[in-house]
């Protein structure tokens, strides 16, 4: 690899949001009081949009470079330099991180703008923008960090911001509980992730390249091939598997997805930005970034693809039964992330990134549309109390519909391009079962999305009169954002067209230098004919149509009654799905409760056993002193009793001069002396 281009603009992409966060969090209350919420909004949006602008200019610079040299490094200072591991605070801009940066700053920027409208009535306006900016900062660190530890800084940093924003309305305890859950579940993943990093570091230092700088890891990781690791896995498999466990936490995959639906407790822009567009994709980003490692571990790849497909499917099944407008989208997000992992697992990294990008567009659009609805409904999130909003909120409806078509995979919307690519790649690379799962999930997706559209926007309004009176289209700050994202959902797929349409894949070409390691290349060599591509497209569209059709029958035309389906198997199946397969309950029973019990036991043990053991030694001393007191008191003499007896004897005119205690003393002493003598005589005569 050639030396990266040394630049110094990347830092500003990162520092601007940080500065915004610092100003808003530290001085926010003051600014809001003196200058109004406008100033807060200006700072909050301004920094992100400025960062976006810098990123765009950076993109232009990068495009100007020859493809093989599109690596930029902004090295700030030495972070730590210990034991041969020299890590800097440095930022690394390559095509992959470029794409991510644009998504984060771009989508993030418009969501910031949306938030100025959505959060306008909140007293903690400043706090919201502070955390949102801080999130952007952390996400950018994750994306741009030049070494894995720095990436991990962002990795946990976004978790922190996620925690803070989920529990943004902290006076409601349930919100903070959801935040805690998100953070702790993520920590479980992080635990595996750091172990992966430790192992990677030691693996590389055993081949004399102790480093965790990503480009150096890329350079030397091939040396790790074939080395044994732990748990019977090869070293690389162990590392990547651990990393993937970390990714399941962050990207809400089985088994650690449980936090994401609860995370909907946060304000809707947060759900859009963090829990749909950016943070949850960190796991995918990480896997793509480290594609050279993952590609070396076929068994991990298989696990990734399987988990991804399973997640895609099961989350979709849960999605069909949800009534909360955001919960549906949340499970949809989990499901879509499953697609991305499927793509990673089958080695189609570019497809994965592509879907990541389009998903960012349409899912953000969906969430913000939902937010618009919730905003209009005065905080109501239950779809059963909505309906007929199409007329009252046209912009919201049309953008929402566009995004829905995108996610369902109708051509030519963005989702069609990306999802189709994933399904195709999965099948083409020989993972038929995985293809089947994801294919089925696509139908379910179509169903629950149109179910949502129909329940929300069609039919009669089912809410209260007061809500009906209050219904209105969202202000410009929100609706304009919906339009932008709606348009992107439509045209966003244009960066990677199916091969039978045109040989136009600028995204894949742009990313090619990143996915150019020997192992990744080997995985990518799959010939696919145009015919089969067309066939798969048709199949996919048919599936989407089928989903739509069923939803249409059930929720628009009401020909089929959903209740009858719900009542199948005595309603047990429906209940299981509605209750999300009881996964939360199982976790509570199997992990959380035993853990709390363990803690209580440890606390009891410490207070009653350990401390008692320590106090026991004190007790022994006290007991010994009591014994010696007895010795004094009884063996020598019953001092208390006897002396007083003696005194009483005197008082009783019995003229005896008895000093009882003394002969006891003498007795003891002489006994002592004789004992010594006796022992001596017996030992050596």
């Amino acid at each position, binding site marked *: 690899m050639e030396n990266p281009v040394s630049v110094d603009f990347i830092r500003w992409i990162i520092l601007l949001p940080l500065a915004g966060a610092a100003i808003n969090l530290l001085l926010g209350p003051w600014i809001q009081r003196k200058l109004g919420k406008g100033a807060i909004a200006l700072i909050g949006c301004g920094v992100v949009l400025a960062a976006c602008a810098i990123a765009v200019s950076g993109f232009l610079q990068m495009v100007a470079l020859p493809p093989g040299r599109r690596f930029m490094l902004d090295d700030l200072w030495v972070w730590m330099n210990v034991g041969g591991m020299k890590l800097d605070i440095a930022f690394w801009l390559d095509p992959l991180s470029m794409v991510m940066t644009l998504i984060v700053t771009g989508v993030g920027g418009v969501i910031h703008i949306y938030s100025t409208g959505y959060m306008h009535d909140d007293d903690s306006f400043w706090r919201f923008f502070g955390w949102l900016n801080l999130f952007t900062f952390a996400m950018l660190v994750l994306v741009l960090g030049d070494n894995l530890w720095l990436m991990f800084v962002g990795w946990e940093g976004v978790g922190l911001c996620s925690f803070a924003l989920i529990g943004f309305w902290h006076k409601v305890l349930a919100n903070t509980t959801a935040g805690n859950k998100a953070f702790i579940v993520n920590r479980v993943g992080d635990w595996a992730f750091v172990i992966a990093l430790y192992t990677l570091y030691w693996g590389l230092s055993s081949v004399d390249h102790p480093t965790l700088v990503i480009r150096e890891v890329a350079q030397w990781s091939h040396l790790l091939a074939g080395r044994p690791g732990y748990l019977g896995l090869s070293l690389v498999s162990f590392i990547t598997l651990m990393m993937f466990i970390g990714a399941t936490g962050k990207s809400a995959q089985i088994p650690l997805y449980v936090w994401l639906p609860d995370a909907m407790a946060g304000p809707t822009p947060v759900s859009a930005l963090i829990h749909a567009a950016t943070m949850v994709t960190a796991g995918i980003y990480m896997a793509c970034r480290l594609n050279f490692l993952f590609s070396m571990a076929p068994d991990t790849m298989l696990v990734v693809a399987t988990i991804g497909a399973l997640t895609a499917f099961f989350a979709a099944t849960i999605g069909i039964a949800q009534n909360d407008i955001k919960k549906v989208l949340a499970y949809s997000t989990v499901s879509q992330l499953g697609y991305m992992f499927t793509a990673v697992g089958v080695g189609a990294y570019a497809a994965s990134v592509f879907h990541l990008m389009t998903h960012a567009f349409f899912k953000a659009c969906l969430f913000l549309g939902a937010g618009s609805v919730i905003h209009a409904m005065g905080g109501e999130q239950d779809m059963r109390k909505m309906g007929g909003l199409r007329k009252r909120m046209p912009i919201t409806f049309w953008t929402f519909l566009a995004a829905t078509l995108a996610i369902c995979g109708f051509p030519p919307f963005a989702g069609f391009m990306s999802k189709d690519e994933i399904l195709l790649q999965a099948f083409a690379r020989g993972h038929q079962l995985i293809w089947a799962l994801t294919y089925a999930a696509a139908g379910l997706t179509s169903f629950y999305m149109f179910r949502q559209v129909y329940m929300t926007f069609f039919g009669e309004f089912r809410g209260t009169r007061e809500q009906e009176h209050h219904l209105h289209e969202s202000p410009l700050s929100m609706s304009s954002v919906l339009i932008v994202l709606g348009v992107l959902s439509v045209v966003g797929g244009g960066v990677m067209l199916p091969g039978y349409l045109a040989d136009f894949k600028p995204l894949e070409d742009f990313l090619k230098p990143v996915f150019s390691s020997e192992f990744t290349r080997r995985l990518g060599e799959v010939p696919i004919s145009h015919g089969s591509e067309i066939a798969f497209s048709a199949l996919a569209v048919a599936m989407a149509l089928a989903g739509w059709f069923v939803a249409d029958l059930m929720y628009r035309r009401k020909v089929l009654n959903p209740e009858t389906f719900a009542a199948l198997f005595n309603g047990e199946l429906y209940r299981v799905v509605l209750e999300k397969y009881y996964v939360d309950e199982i976790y509570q029973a199997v992990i959380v409760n035993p853990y709390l019990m363990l803690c209580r036991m440890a606390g009891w043990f410490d207070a009653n056993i350990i401390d008692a053991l320590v106090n026991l030694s004190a007790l022994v001393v006290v007991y010994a002193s009591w014994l010696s*007191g007895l010795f004094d*008191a009884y063996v020598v003499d019953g001092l208390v009793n006897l002396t007083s007896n003696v*005194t009483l004897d*005197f*008082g009783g005119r019995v003229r005896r*001069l008895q000093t009882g205690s003394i*002969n006891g003393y003498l*007795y003891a002493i002489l006994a002592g002396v004789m004992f010594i003598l006796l022992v001596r005589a017996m030992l050596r005569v």
Partner: protein
Amino acid sequence: MPGGLTLNHFLVLSLIVFALGLFCVMSRRNAIGILMGVELILNSANINYLAFALFGGGRYDGQVFSLFVIMLAAAEAVVGLAIVLAIYQDLRTIDVDATETLNG
């Protein structure tokens, strides 16, 4: 020594007296009784000194030592009996309930 008396005759005699003195000291609960036991011990020691003075070499050393023992025994007896009398006197005149005792 004429008459077949050996050093050991005297040493054993003194030992018996010593042991009786010890017993007296240990078993008596009467202060004066204990002091009598002490006198027995002192006498037994003196027998030793004189016996060693005669059979061993240091003639005057032993005899002088025994003289000092006698003298100090007298001094001790004086002081001891004075204290005994003082306590007796004291208790006869002082309210018993007001007295403090040593213990513990």
